[in-house]
């Protein structure tokens, strides 16, 4: 009957949610672990050696621990219902983008493109997406990169404390690129806009650090 068919649909959905809840928790744990380790940068950013080391560790953990869980989520996700369940993993995908972006900076000072991030996470981008399954949405990529900007603004001041002035210069150049890239976009009054406004503020803060150092 119609009611029992509906019941079946509802039960399936509950099952999907339960499975996604479990995998998402694993995702959260794996992501948290990388973030936790990357936090050490503020205490240890004394030498290039140390920062490169941390960047390597960060990248490795994402590849080894986070990417496989995203693959699992992709399998559990019913085809063409990405947005219905995206809230289960959005937050941690953003955090993974952040971890990759930060690690890449620590490794070689360079900027992680959306293709690069997607290749590390082993998921398609909005461009290369076929249909169904998980992919790297632009919004999540952008939000993660703003997080990188904010973290580097904090790092700049800690570099001064740790007397690592070379890194400050790299951060300055990185954040300028990032802010310039974002400044071409027209955000509506949404979350991204507010985040970007705070990024502009951070960018100015770093300019002040650079200026202070010159004095």
């Amino acid at each position, binding site marked *: *009957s*119609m*009611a029992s*068919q*509906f*019941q079946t*649909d*509802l039960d399936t959905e*509950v099952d999907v949610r339960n499975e996604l809840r479990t995998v998402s928790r694993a995702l959260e744990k794996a992501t948290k672990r990388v973030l936790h380790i990357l936090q050490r940068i503020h205490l240890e950013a004394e030498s290039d050696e140390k920062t490169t080391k941390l960047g390597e560790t960060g990248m490795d953990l994402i590849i080894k621990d986070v990417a496989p869980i995203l693959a699992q989520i992709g399998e559990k996700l019913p085809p*063409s*219902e*990405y*947005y*219905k369940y995206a809230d289960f993993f959005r937050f941690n995908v953003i955090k993974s983008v952040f971890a990759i972006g930060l690690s890449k900076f620590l490794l070689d000072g360079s900027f992680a*493109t*959306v293709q690069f991030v997607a290749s590390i996470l082993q998921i398609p981008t*909005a*461009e290369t997406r076929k249909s169904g399954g998980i992919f790297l949405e*632009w*919004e999540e*990529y*952008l939000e993660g990169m703003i997080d990188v900007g904010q973290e580097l603004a904090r790092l700049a001041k800690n570099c001064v404390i740790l007397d690592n002035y070379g890194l400050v210069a790299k951060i300055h150049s990185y954040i300028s690129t990032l802010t*310039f*890239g*974002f400044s*071409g*976009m*027209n955000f*509506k009054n949404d979350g991204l806009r507010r985040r970007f406004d705070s990024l502009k503020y951070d960018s100015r803060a770093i300019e002040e650090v650079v200026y202070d150092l010159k004095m």
Partner: protein
Amino acid sequence: AEMFDKAKAYLDVKRNKDDEIFHLTKDITYESKRIIFVLHRFFIYDDACRDAKRKLNMLLDSDRYFLGLAKALEGEDMSLHYRRYTHCVQECIEAMMFLHFIEHRKIPTYEDVKSFLVWVIKDEKCNTDPSATEKDANDDDGSDKPQEISTTTTSSRTLTVPLSLTDYMLGICDFTGELMKAAIPTLTKPKWHSFLYQVFALVREIYAQFAGICAENRLFRNKMSVMRASVIKIEATVYRLKM
């Protein structure tokens, strides 16, 4: 910077699509409510059904309403837009069900309702032909070969506004509320007592069936408790009739 341009283009398209769908659904919801309003007058106004039917067909086949929504949704990721358009679909199928019940004294099936939300559109241009846009301009000069015209004109696309079973079930819930509102005033109109009994039988049966559904869906739970209130009001009306 090229990457950011792509992001900008992507987000702009996404937001415009969302705006377009938002406006369509607002209008559809409004018109659906108007149809329900018209249908409630069928006790006093003989042409109410005909009026409602005409309005409903317009609502379905106009680019300003459902056909427009179907076109806007073509090729889109449905799960992205679902939350936006689900409400207007429920509102409209409530109107469809109400009309169907007044005409046939029964409830349309899920398949019935889905069939209303399918459109077959003849394409004047053939999308698979890469030169189609070029030829488009020459459409009227008759210079195309017959075979080509034939493949071009017979190509057609099927558009739909996907209707989930949940929408259908939630639509039924709302529909019982309308039946209740229609049924209660019939207490004082002997001509319509058979209508009252039919509503009584149908709504009680629906409630008895739905009462077995185990849903975490908060919306469904709320609608069930509203339905329970409707059932009790209809029963009280039949009771009054009996006393």
